[in-house]
C-alpha cells in the first residue's frame, strides 16, 4: 500500500463527515426549550424597571426636599407668590396691553414710547402689585395661597379696565418700570407652565427633568408645585395613569 497523500487523506474525512449524524442521547430539547422561554418573559420586567425608577426619583426627591426645607425657612414664600401670580396672568395681559396700546397710541401720541415700554415689561406687574402685594406680604402663610391664586383669576376678566386705569396713571407706571423687579419679569414664556415659575423645590427639579425627557401631555411623573410644598400630582407609566394634570 502507498503512503497516502494529504489531499486524499483530507477527502476521506470530508466524505466520512459530510452526512454524518449522531443522535443526541440526552433529552436536549427540553433543556433548550427551558432556556428559550425566559427570553420571552423578560419583556415584563421593563414595567418593573420603570416603576422602580419612578420610586427612586420620588425617594431622592423627598429626601432632598426635606433637606432643603430645613434650611429655607419659608423666606422665599412671598416672592414666590408674586412670581407665580405674574406668570399666571402673563399671556393674556401681554396681548391685551398690546391691543390697548394700539388703541391708546393715536389718542396719546406723546406717551407712546412709555406705554410700549410698559407693554414689553408685561404690564400685569402694574396691575398686580397694587392689589395683591399687600395681601401677600401681610399673609405669607401657605394656607392663604389659594385665596391669592383665586384672586389672580378675577383680575383677568376686567384686565382691560385695569390696564386702562394703569395707562391713565402713567406716573406710577414709570416708577415701576424703573424699579429693579421689572427686569425679572422679562422671562421668556414657555409652553410648560412649570418652567416659567423657576425652580423652587425638588418637585420643580423633577418636573423639569421629566419635561425634558417626556414630551407627552401626561408626563411620566408630575409634581404639583403651586404651593411651596411639592406633592405628587400624576404618574403615567404606559397603561398606569394616576391623576391628571390640573390645568386651569
Amino acid at each position, binding site marked *: *500500500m502507498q503512503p497516502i497523500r494529504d489531499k486524499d487523506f*483530507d477527502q476521506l*474525512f470530508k466524505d466520512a463527515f459530510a452526512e454524518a449524524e449522531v443522535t443526541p442521547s*440526552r433529552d*436536549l430539547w427540553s433543556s433548550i426549550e427551558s432556556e428559550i422561554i425566559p427570553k420571552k418573559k423578560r419583556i415584563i420586567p421593563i414595567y418593573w424597571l420603570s416603576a422602580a425608577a419612578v420610586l427612586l426619583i420620588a425617594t431622592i426627591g423627598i429626601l432632598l426636599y426635606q433637606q432643603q426645607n430645613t434650611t429655607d425657612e419659608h423666606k422665599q414664600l412671598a416672592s414666590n407668590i408674586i412670581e407665580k401670580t405674574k406668570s399666571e396672568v402673563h399671556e393674556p395681559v401681554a396681548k391685551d396691553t398690546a391691543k390697548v396700546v394700539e388703541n391708546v397710541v393715536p389718542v396719546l401720541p406723546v406717551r407712546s414710547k412709555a406705554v410700549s415700554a410698559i407693554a414689553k415689561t408685561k404690564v400685569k406687574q402694574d396691575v398686580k402689585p397694587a392689589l395683591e402685594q399687600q395681601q401677600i406680604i401681610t399673609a405669607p402663610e401657605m394656607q392663604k395661597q389659594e385665596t391669592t391664586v383665586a384672586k389672580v383669576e378675577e383680575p383677568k376678566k376686567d384686565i382691560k379696565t385695569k390696564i386702562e386705569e394703569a395707562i391713565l396713571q402713567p406716573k406710577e407706571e414709570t416708577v415701576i418700570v424703573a424699579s429693579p423687579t421689572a427686569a425679572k419679569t422679562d422671562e421668556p414664556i414657555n409652553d410648560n407652565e412649570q418652567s416659567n415659575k423657576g425652580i423652587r423645590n425638588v418637585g420643580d427639579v423633577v418636573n423639569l427633568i421629566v419635561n425634558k425627557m417626556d414630551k407627552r401631555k401626561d408626563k411620566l411623573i408630575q409634581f404639583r408645585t403651586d404651593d411651596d410644598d411639592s406633592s405628587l400630582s400624576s404618574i403615567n407609566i404606559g397603561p398606569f395613569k394616576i391623576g391628571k394634570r390640573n390645568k386651569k
Partner: protein
Amino acid sequence: MEGCKAGDRKMQELLYKQTAAKMLAVCMRYARDRMEAEDVLQMGYIKIFQKIKEYRGDGSFEGWIRRVMVNTAIESYRKNLRSLNVVEIDEAYEQPSTGFDFGTLGMQDLMKVIQKLADGYRMVFNMYVIEGYSHKEIGETLGISEGASKSQLSRARAILKEEIIKMEGFGYATYTG
C-alpha cells in the same frame, strides 16, 4: 422556518428534531467527548433561535445552522482555552511509512481519532479540512499565526494517520462492533 422566526415553539422543536443529529455530529468533531458536544449543541440551538431573524435566505438554511454551530464550537473552545490554559506538546511526528485501507474505516472511528487530538490540532484540522477555512481565517479566528495553523494542521494529520494505523493494528474489527 417562518414559524421559527415567529418564535413558534412547535416549529422550533421540529427544526431541532430535523437537524439535531447532523449538528451533533458537527459538534462531536470539535469536542473531546459526547458530553461536551451536547453542551455545545445546546448553546448552538439557543443561538440559532435567537438569531434566526437575521437569516436572510442567502445560502441553504442548513448551511446557516451549521455555521452557527461551528462558530459556537470555536467560541466554546476559546473559552476553555482561557480557563484550562492547555499546553500542547510539540512533538515531531513522522509520516507513517505504511499506508492503510480506508475502505474499512467508518465515520465513528474517524470521530474517535479526531476527538483524541489535542484541542488546538483538532480545531485547525476541523476548520481546514472539513469546514474549508483558509489558514489565514483560522489564524484570525483562533488568534494564532497563519504559519502556526499550517504546522498544526500537518501535525494533526500525522497524529491521525498514526492513530488510524494503531487502530487497525490492534484489531480493527472490535471498533466496529
